[in-house]
């Protein structure tokens, strides 16, 4: 790196020069819209295709208060957390189990490449397509899932998965789980492969069994990667939109309305309340930032 200065000539200006396209586009298309969203939260901007607005008179936080007091928003926040947690915990557990199996030094599993490809596949498929496919699969009374459950004798009659609130929530969580456990597994496996094999060998010599090695060596060494997965999954999960919106449009009876679905419905349907949608976006942003900060803090504390 010492060679950026040669022949009495500084190359530093090229660092700035080559960053210009990124910076310009970032300022115009990313930073400005972000600030714009924050500003709109304090205005009276609403109505289809409206670009003129004024700051709120009197109580400048009115939109934020309206959103926070709204039943639907509170329910949406609760739904978002429930849908994410119910998918993340089993997702992490299954991914850890598969990681333990695939990296086991005792039981060599054949066909790992094939299994990885198949388990990861749902992740690259358009979420909108997946949601509508599951909508068709869980159709009542004659969808494929009901068809199987009845013909195998598990259910006596078809069950309407899309009218029951609990079933709808579980289905959305299941879809998220199904799309993401393969991804988490691959990340964790690459983490395990990064652990120095001599640690495992030493443990084997000391007579440690698989179970002990997993809990005493693998898990502690995977901590950073697990926290990375936790944060990225949390950010994705808290802004979850495609699956709940496309599966049952946030229903039945708002049971799968997430915060992002709420934002969309406020801004682009009904009375086009851009100001409230913007306020809700900022609240979501603060929640995500706070959660990430807490996780980061917890990680830093223990190191």
């Amino acid at each position, binding site marked *: 790196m010492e060679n950026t200065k040669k022949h009495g000539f500084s190359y530093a200006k090229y660092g700035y020069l080559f960053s210009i396209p990124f910076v310009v586009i970032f300022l115009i298309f990313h930073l400005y*819209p972000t600030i*714009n969203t924050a500003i709109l939260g304090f205005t009276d901007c609403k109505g289809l295709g409206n670009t003129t607005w004024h700051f709120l008179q009197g109580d400048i936080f009115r939109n934020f208060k309206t959103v926070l007091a709204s039943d639907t928003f509170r329910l949406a926040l609760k739904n978002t957390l429930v849908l994410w947690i119910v998918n993340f915990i089993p997702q992490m557990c299954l991914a850890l189990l598969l990681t333990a*199996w695939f990296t086991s030094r005792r039981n060599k599993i054949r066909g790992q490449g094939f299994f990885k490809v198949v*388990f990861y596949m749902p992740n690259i498929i358009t*979420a909108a397509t997946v949601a509508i496919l599951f909508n*068709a699969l869980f159709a009542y009374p004659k969808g494929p899932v009901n068809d199987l459950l009845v013909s195998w004798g598990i259910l006596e009659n078809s069950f309407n998965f899309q009218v029951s609130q609990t079933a709808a929530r579980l289905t959305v969580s299941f879809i998220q789980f199904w799309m993401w456990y393969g991804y988490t597994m691959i990340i964790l496996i690459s983490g395990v492969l990064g652990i120095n094999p001599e640690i495992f060998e030493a443990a084997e010599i000391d007579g440690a069994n698989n179970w002990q090695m997993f809990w005493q060596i693998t898990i502690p060494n995977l901590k950073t990667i697990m926290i990375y997965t936790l944060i990225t999954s949390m950010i994705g999960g808290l802004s979850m939109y495609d699956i709940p919106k496309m599966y049952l449009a946030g229903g039945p009876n708002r049971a799968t309305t997430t915060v992002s679905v709420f*934002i969309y419905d406020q*801004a682009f349907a009904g009375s086009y309340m851009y100001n409230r949608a913007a306020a809700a976006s900022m609240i979501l942003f603060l929640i995500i930032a706070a959660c990430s900060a807490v996780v980061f803090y917890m990680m830093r504390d223990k190191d």
Partner: protein
Amino acid sequence: MSRLHSRKENPVVKTLIYIVLIFLTILSLFPFVIMVVNSTRNTPEIQTHAVSLIPSKYLLQNWAVFGGKTFNPGRGFMNSFIISAGATICTVYFSTLTAYALVAYRWKMRDAFLTLILCVMMIPPTVTSIGTYQFMYKIGMTNNLLALIIPAIAAPSSVFFMRQFMLASLPLELLDSARIDGSKEFRTFNQIAMPIMKPAMATQAIFCFVNSWNQLFLPSILLTRNELYTMPIMVSQLKGDIYKVEYGAVYLGLTLTVLPLFIIYFALSKYIIAGVALGGVKG
């Protein structure tokens, strides 16, 4: 080391593991098998037995249902392709260039710039969509595919990935000898640094293309004219009333949107899995 007790295999455990793995394989594939098979069956067949592994002969009839409706697979494919290809080229080229600025040169704002990139990586796009929509509306870029392509020039997570790769694989001495040979800085980037970055660029290209292809939220608010609809927007139309009784056509529509992804995935799965393992994609 004592090989005696470390290499013992337990056949019962191993069988159980394979049973679980095969179950998960079926779980991953079953929805797509049903989707493809049912796209060749008609509504009465699907209503009597929704699950079948034997294709029927109604593929063309199902295709005919799309005639004259908003679901136009050809046009959707083109729109999605233009957006995804454009965004991919922008992201890959400019992320490599920005990473090069961060790695090859030492400048005052460099570390601050990197921190900014790391922070921005964390903001989900849904959160800023209202401001984006209002801004695009004001400058007249709604219903314009470029609105989804040009912002891809600034892709923080891609820059970060490129930087990590470049730190490990771009020898700075190489740049120095190019300078001694009289190569201009921009040419050095294009002709010496870029070829070395090819594997990383390919990984990023795959993920950028797939992510862009799958996007729904932003395209669905920015593109409101039928002829600009992307594949995911068209898929969302399949839930509409006109397809209520056309089960086979819905499955066919879904199959058509997934087809390009399947082709990309199974042709490049080795690189995709390796790319995920490198952390090349954000969850």
